[in-house]
């Protein structure tokens, strides 16, 4: 009996101690990890969309909640004037969700560009959505009022060969972004004004 109690006590003490330590460490590093994620996962996509921006979009960001989720919006300014808004949406890909950064130019209502952030698509096939700049380049400058589609669905985007599902996922994520933008436009305009100063 005595041994039984000892086992329980030792395991409990050890587990709670390690739980406490990890919780403290998690608290201490959370902000840094979020920052690193921005810099290394989302940063490259944002930077390629907002090429030539006169501000630092990563620091000029704001959060807005839509329903239950909180979304981050990155503001891109050109020649000191905010012109584009970049944020992340997802589309259903072949191997799971495809994360997509979508840049909207709200000045002349066109797509500024898109960039894949996270995905689990097949290397050499669907993964080209991220690796091949030619595919995402097709989205640049498209008008916002028409939904984006691949050519086989009657749209303008030529799909990556052998990866129609991935290409569709990128299109649907783009359309989703436009929908979110239209939905949140009043709040977004409000926030963007703050950046003008």
């Amino acid at each position: 009996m005595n041994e039984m109690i000892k086992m329980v006590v030792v395991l409990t003490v050890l587990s709670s101690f390690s739980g406490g330590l990890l919780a403290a460490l998690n608290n201490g590093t959370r902000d840094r990890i979020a920052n690193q994620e921005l810099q290394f996962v989302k940063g490259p996509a944002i930077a390629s969309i907002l090429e030539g921006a006169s501000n630092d979009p990563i620091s000029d960001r704001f959060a807005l909640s839509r329903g239950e989720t909180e979304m981050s919006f990155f503001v891109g300014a050109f020649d000191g004037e905010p012109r584009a808004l970049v944020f992340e949406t997802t589309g259903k890909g072949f191997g799971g969700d495809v994360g997509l950064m979508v840049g909207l130019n709200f000045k002349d209502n066109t797509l500024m560009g898109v960039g894949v952030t996270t995905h689990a698509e097949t290397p050499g096939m669907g993964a080209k959505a991220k690796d091949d700049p030619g595919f995402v380049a097709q989205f640049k400058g498209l008008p916002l009022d028409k939904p984006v589609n691949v050519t086989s669905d009657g749209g303008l985007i030529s799909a990556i060969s052998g990866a129609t599902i991935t290409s569709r996922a990128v299109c649907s994520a783009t359309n989703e972004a436009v929908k979110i933008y239209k939905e949140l436009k009043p709040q977004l305009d409000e926030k963007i004004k703050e950046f003008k100063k």
Partner: protein
Amino acid sequence: MAKTITQEFVKGLWDEVPPFRLVLGLCPVLAVTKTLYNGWGMGVATTFVLVCSNVLVSSLRKVIPPKVRIACFIVVIASFVTVVELLMQAYAYPLFLELGIFIPLIVVNCIVLGRSEAFASKKGVIASLSDGLGIGIGFTLSLCALGTVRELLGTGGLTLYKTAIPVFGPSFEPFKFMVEAPGAFVSLGLMLCLMNLAGKK
């Protein structure tokens, strides 16, 4: 025969170097050694876990009841692995992206559990520290050696930190096979062979 602290340390570098002599922990060895940078990143992470868990297990060895010792070891090891994972995410994010799933998998790396069970739970704290350090550094060096061979032949360059340094120049045709999984097996086998030849007097 009682070994001195130095002997405990040195045995990890040659006599009991984990991947080659004990042939343990091959999963990360084969999977992450595509580049030298990945190799030493994984090695350092494992060494940290090994040293910390060895020290803690050895200092708790009188308190831990023998019947639940494995559970206790796993709790200790898993905590340190999570510590490494969080720190790596916070301070070396690109490396974390490369190593990915293999960081949490250090928990089930049999070298770490093996040292806790076979050594740290029986010996003193100082001896366990030097054992962990020796085995860890031996593991790191093996990963670096394998990573160097594979990256050098597979890409013609070496990544010491973040960016690759070209070694062979532009005329070198990369031997792609080496950075794929089969190349890992072949180079590990050849290195095992060399180690055995060198050990045979």
